[in-house]
């Protein structure tokens, strides 16, 4: 071999090859792993030692008798090898003269559907396998729906094991038409059905004589030429800022991977959140500055002006800005065993930004077999719902159909840190999408200055009868006497007005605290010192209130009174009724109270008088500088 010239040719050819990322999905035993093994084997990507070990394994574990069991190539983990199923997503690589391929082998079992969504989120095409003997199954529909939901626009319907139905055209045609009835309601741009046998290589690499009635291409020929170009480079410019690069005082760059469009030095970009604009001065890389960068490139930009930008911001085309909103509607795929709780706070990660968020409304869930909509109160593992989200702060995003990177997000459980959901944004719920936040001239600080105080929320929490209202009332009197401007939100009083539509179920308690938190936030914005007296039994909801208001303006006061003492006091006769079963969901009796883990102040009412406690709280406020 004349190495250098051959090598150059080889490298040049490699450069030009496009990459197709696709996934295979189907039910258990439809032959996915066998198909991938066959592709690897027939494209001669297997090494001799891998082949030898395959032959050895085939004899030990194989389900194909004397022949090589290709599935053993890709089923990696011990457990699944023994059970004969794929547990997780496996990524495989192969190449032909025309294209390079990354294939995600995804599992058929229902409980692992979330892994299929994972594979689909990074693929442009899906090969959906159907066992010719079984036809279209629930799993087939589920996988087609998830592929469509995650934005895959091209599918191949691989009717496998065609040898086992005697290469029957009638069987093939029936399956294809069954599938089309269902898929007509999905968003596929191209659908190609191919009769094949992975085990015997029928119509995988080359067209087979066994199916003379089939006029379409073999699988690999189709994969080599199918056009899946999503043209991200032609979309509006988006750069989610991943990291601010500051090696020294003279250099300030913004690093990230371009999620859409292209950029050149001299062009103007807008910071989506603040609306400020600046000109790109350089596109910096270690190998020198670039004249242009396009979607998919990882770059560092420098700007002409000192603009406030941090991780989580999005730099965008000022003529085609992303949507800026704290509310949107989205499809949500639930991926956790513990079900979705509307109203509960989760962390939402979109691009490089992570914010607390909750499902404000679950509009419906989708039956993946019929695509019908059903009313639902919650989502269980593997269910898909259409939901409204409310975030604690506005994010910049696009609709998922316009840009996967700026329109897809994950939900994270705040306590277990597990990824519990995957969402695809449909549209913003703010009517005023194009109204950017107006910085008002009279702000919170200005209002507070007028009062000679710093606004703050004193959040009293504790059992019923612990003394919250009594002490809060004394504190407010003392502050009023000093000329401070205050407002007391009391549990019982608020339930007569703002929250009179709420009961005492866990969900209503969550909503009760959310509204109180919002009201307190408004009063803080008005410059007031706000006192709230609510049982507020759940840690996560107190945390929600804390985050709503802001860490620096929230002081949690735990009124720590033993329940025996509260029951003895029983100022409103409620414990008596609860014990008699006349009140349900009563905190401390048949509903839990979660004690604060890091309250700023703890008040032991059995140790001193309410007046002494009130004085101590006022002193704390003075010491911390809230009273001017």
């Amino acid at each position: 071999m004349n190495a250098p010239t051959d090598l150059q040719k080889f490298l040049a050819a490699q450069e030009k090859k496009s990459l197709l990322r696709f996934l295979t999905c189907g039910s258990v035993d439809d032959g996915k792993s066998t198909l991938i093994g066959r592709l690897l084997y027939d494209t001669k990507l297997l090494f001799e030692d891998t082949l030898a070990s395959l032959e050895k394994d085939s004899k030990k574990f194989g389900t194909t008798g004397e022949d090589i069991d290709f599935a053993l190539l890709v089923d990696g983990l011990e457990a699944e090898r023994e059970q004969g199923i794929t547990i997780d997503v496996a990524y495989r690589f192969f190449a032909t003269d025309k294209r390079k391929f990354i294939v995600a082998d995804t599992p058929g079992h229902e409980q692992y559907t979330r892994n299929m969504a994972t594979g689909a989120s990074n693929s442009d095409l899906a090969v959906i396998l159907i066992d010719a003997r079984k036809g279209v199954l629930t799993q087939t529909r589920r996988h087609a729906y998830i592929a469509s939901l995650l934005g895959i626009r091209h599918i191949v319907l691989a009717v496998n094991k065609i040898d086992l139905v005697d290469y029957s055209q009638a069987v093939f045609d029936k399956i294809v038409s069954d599938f089309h009835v269902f898929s007509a309601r999905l968003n596929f741009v191209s659908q190609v059905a191919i009769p094949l046998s992975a085990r015997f290589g029928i119509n995988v690499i080359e067209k087979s004589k066994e199916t003379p009635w089939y006029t379409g291409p073999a699988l690999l020929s189709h994969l080599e030429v199918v056009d899946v170009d999503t043209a991200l480079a032609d979309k509006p410019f988006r750069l989610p800022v991943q990291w601010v690069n500051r090696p020294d005082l003279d250099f300030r760059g913004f690093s990230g991977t371009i999620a859409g469009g292209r950029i050149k030095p001299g062009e103007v970009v807008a910071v989506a959140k603040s609306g400020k604009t600046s000109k790109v001065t350089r596109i910096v890389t270690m190998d020198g500055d670039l004249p242009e960068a396009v979607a998919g490139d990882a770059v560092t930009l420098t700007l002409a002006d000192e603009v406030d930008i941090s991780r989580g911001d999005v730099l965008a085309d000022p003529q085609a800005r992303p949507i800026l909103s704290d509310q949107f509607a989205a499809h949500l795929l639930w991926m956790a065993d513990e079900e979705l709780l509307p109203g509960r706070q989760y962390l939402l990660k979109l691009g490089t930004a992570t914010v607390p968020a909750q499902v404000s409304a679950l509009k419906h869930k989708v039956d993946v077999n019929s695509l019908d909509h059903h009313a639902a109160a919650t989502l269980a593992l593997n269910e898909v719902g259409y939901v409204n989200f409310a975030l604690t702060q506005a994010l910049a995003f696009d609709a998922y159909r316009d840009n996967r990177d700026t329109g897809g997000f994950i939900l994270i459980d705040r306590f277990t840190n597990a990824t519990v959901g995957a969402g695809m944004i449909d549209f913003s719920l703010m009517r005023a999408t194009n109204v950017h936040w107006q910085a008002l001239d009279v702000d919170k600080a200005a209002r507070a200055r007028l009062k000679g105080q710093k606004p703050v929320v004193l959040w009293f929490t504790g059992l019923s009868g612990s003394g919250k209202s009594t002490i809060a009332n004394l504190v407010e009197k003392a502050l009023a006497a000093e000329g401070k401007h205050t407002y007391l939100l009391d549990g019982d009083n608020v339930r007569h007005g703002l929250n009179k539509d709420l009961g005492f179920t866990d969900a209503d308690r969550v909503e009760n605290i959310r509204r109180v938190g919002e009201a307190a936030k408004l009063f803080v914005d008005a410059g007031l010192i706000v006192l709230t007296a609510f049982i507020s039994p759940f840690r996560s909801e107190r945390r929600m209130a804390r985050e709503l208001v802001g860490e620096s303006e929230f002081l949690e006061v735990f009124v720590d009174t033993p329940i025996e003492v509260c029951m003895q006091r029983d100022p409103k006769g409620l414990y008596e009724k609860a014990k008699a079963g006349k009140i349900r969901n009563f905190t401390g009796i048949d509903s839990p109270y979660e004690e604060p883990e890091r309250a700023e102040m703890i008040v032991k009412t059995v140790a001193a008088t309410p007046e002494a406690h009130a004085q101590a709280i006022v002193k704390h406020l003075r010491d911390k500088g809230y009273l001017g």
Partner: protein
Amino acid sequence: MREVAAEFANPVMLYSVGKDSAVMLHLAMKAFYPSKPPFPLMHVNTTWKFQEMIKFRDDTVKRLGLNFIEYINQDGIKRGINPFDSGSSLHTQVMKTEALKQALDKYGFDAAFGGARRDEEKSRAKERIFSFRTASHAWDPKNQRPELWRVYNTRIAKGESIRVFPLSNWTELDIWQYILAENIPIVPLYFAKKRPVVERAGTLIMKDDDRMKLLPGEKVEEKLVRFRTLGCYPLTGAIESEADTLEGIVTEMFTARTSERQGRLIDSDEKASMEKKKKEGYF
């Protein structure tokens, strides 16, 4: 990589001195340029690495001006663990797996970069790019976090950590093409040269120092060899080759018929051995 640097308190890059590490380090230099990578480089040294690897490592650290940590399991040294007498399985367990856990615990790293690729071995094909480990460094293949799009869940509780594999989707050929295209320095052992080797159990082992004792019937031969992967010299098989340039290696690669891990003796030790090691905390 920038995701990790931005979201973790104390990341580290595990540097094995091999070609994958060379590429990973090169990517880090590029990702943070003009800054230096904002994390240290750590080499878990079994004390049985090729001498040329150690020299190359020290030169690289000096050339790039990086923050570097070397960790050796002193307890293993005291116990006299070595690949010849202890067997490759125990040696790897103590000097690599245990050592890595000790090092991560000692420095309190909460994220560690590794150069593993999905094409290397079956169980690695199923590992995530951000791979979650419990406080005792165990990996549970049935309970991995789904990775959608390019959005990675980086949340961990105290004591838990994450392994990050930025090269997950690279193949061996990609690595070599990239080294060639970017002209990345690599350990000279990858290039063919006359080296003193001993044939043992069908594998060519290089006699890198006097700690290797010859068995009856064995003799040292000078052969033109190179290495496709690098590790502990007694556990790393050489291949006969004339490829003494990057171009030569890539040419050899696209006609290659054996996979690179064949030269690694630890993989064939036990059935599904890699997976077992990983559950125990091997990288």
